[in-house]
């Protein structure tokens, strides 16, 4: 038993992933390792050493751009030397591609988007959402295994380790895919996961200018504005969306405005405490998963609601 490894494409997720890794490693009677791979990443080694028994560091100038094939090959070569039981990766788009390629190199099983993760009788057991969010599937995988873990699925705890820093010597393979151009997306949804109140718009919003209604409502409620996938990907009004393939949120209050409630969207709001839907269509699926339903024109309801809240909250 040689351990549980963590690699994250997002540095801020190492804490929660290594917390889980530590818990599983203890059950396996093994240690943990954090993989720190990239360009100019050395400065982060100390903070990882406080969270893992080992830090494998590969800091190379040619690793400035993340290409999953290159990273998979590097981690694969390390894994051949040290034979970890489990490799945990973050479930971002980059992380999922990496986990698929790494698992295949290892001829290993892979479970992406894990919401729960454990080891039982030497097997890795995980829960993930399937059927467009309609069901939770519990799956078991023999070791070695690669899993990708949904962000914020696990709580971060303070780990007080004094891990050993190991500089690894691996030839960096040349990428099979070459970068031509890259554009930063203006990310609008970063705050959605943390928000207590989220107002989201769907295809019922007719024009882009009408989004100001949602912003006004969000302002009086101190909330954030989000949307469904069609508003982001088809209409380009937002950079990202709420749903199975986007943000999965758990606010106290979620107000769905002009949203029909495709199950892929509902999968992203399942953990909301209270769901309100405002929709003219009485048959809309969103109504099946809502606590409070208003079947009326959002263009009448939202302005009236803004006024009512202002009066009630004295704003």
């Amino acid at each position, binding site marked *: 038993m040689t351990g549980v490894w963590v690699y994250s494409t997002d540095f801020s997720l190492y804490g929660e992933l290594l917390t889980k890794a530590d818990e599983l490693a203890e059950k396996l009677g093994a240690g943990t390792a954090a993989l720190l791979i990239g360009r100019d990443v050395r400065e982060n080694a100390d903070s990882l050493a406080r969270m893992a028994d080992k830090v494998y560091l590969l800091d190379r100038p040619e690793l400035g751009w993340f290409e999953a094939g290159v990273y998979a090959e590097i981690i694969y070569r390390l894994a051949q030397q040290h034979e970890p039981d489990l490799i945990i990766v973050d479930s971002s788009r980059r992380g999922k591609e990496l986990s698929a390629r790494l698992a295949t190199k290892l001829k290993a099983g892979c479970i992406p988007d894990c919401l729960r993760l454990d080891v039982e009788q030497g097997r890795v057991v995980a829960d993930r959402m399937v059927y467009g969010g309609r069901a939770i599937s519990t799956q*078991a995988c023999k070791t070695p295994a690669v899993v990708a873990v949904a962000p914020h699925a696990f709580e971060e705890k303070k780990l007080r380790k004094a891990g050993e820093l190991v500089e690894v010597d691996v030839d960096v393979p040349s990428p099979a895919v070459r970068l031509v151009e890259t554009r930063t997306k203006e990310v609008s949804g970063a705050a959605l996961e943390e928000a207590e109140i989220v107002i989201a718009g769907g295809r019922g919003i007719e024009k882009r200018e009408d989004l100001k209604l949602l912003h006004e409502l969000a302002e009086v409620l101190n909330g954030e504005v989000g949307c469904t996938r069609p508003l982001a990907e088809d209409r380009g009004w937002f950079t990202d969306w709420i749903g199975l393939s986007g943000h999965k949120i758990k606010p106290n209050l979620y107000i769905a405005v002009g949203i029909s409630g495709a199950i892929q969207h509902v999968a992203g709001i399942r953990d909301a405490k209270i769901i309100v839907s405002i929709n003219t269509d009485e048959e809309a699926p969103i109504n099946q998963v809502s606590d409070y339903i208003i079947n009326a024109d959002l263009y009448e309801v939202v302005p009236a609601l803004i006024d009512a809240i202002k009066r009630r909250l004295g704003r």
Partner: protein
Amino acid sequence: MPRVLVCIKHSLNVAELSVDRETGRVVTAGAPRKMSDFDRNAVEEALKLREAGWEAVVITVGDEEAKMALREALAMGVDSAYHITGDELKDLDTLATSYLLAKAAEKLKPDLILCGEASIDSFTGLVGPRIAEWLQIPHIAYVRSLKVEGAEVIAERSLEDRIEVVRAEMPALITVTREINEPRIPSIMAIMKASKKEIVRWSAGDLGVSTEELERLRAVGVLEVRAPMMKRKGVVIEGESVQEIVEKLVDALVQEGVLP
């Protein structure tokens, strides 16, 4: 003639699944199925290449009924269809499924392989990148636009925080998102014609894959599938006027303690 191979899945139609109220389990036996949504985008993208002189071929791994997805792709306009099937292929996970598809790709020698971002039912997104890895060819994920230039493919992919334009030498494997195109809907005539087309059947043995090999590639097993509890109040708020309705909603939200 260059060849594009599209890997598709006959998925559970997740929008029409029902839950057994007594057991809380999702009923999958006999549940309606269809070609996975993203795969339809992959087929459409292959048809665009076909219009530029390519041969478009479609393949699936699945039971007898999975032929329906191949028929649908044929009706959309692909040239030929391959069905990897057999009793020993039940409940394969992505490791084995991708291996069979990679073995088939070795026979079919495509210049480009297209897959959907993920299947609508299990939504792992693993099969595409795994095939690329088995074949040791470049892989580009989450592609929302695509063009072929000489021996290279240039693709725009959408990551959480950025858009990347990348290029790779063919043969390459590309997984596409729903935004890449609007899949065509075949005519009744095309559907009827497609129903008469021959579908090539391959067993694992035809691809040189033994039963023992398949067993070794069984890594993930499903222990249980259950519907998550989602108890909602479902209160429809009604009233004489919009003002009355929103006042009632605000009252309710105050009661729930969710207003700031």
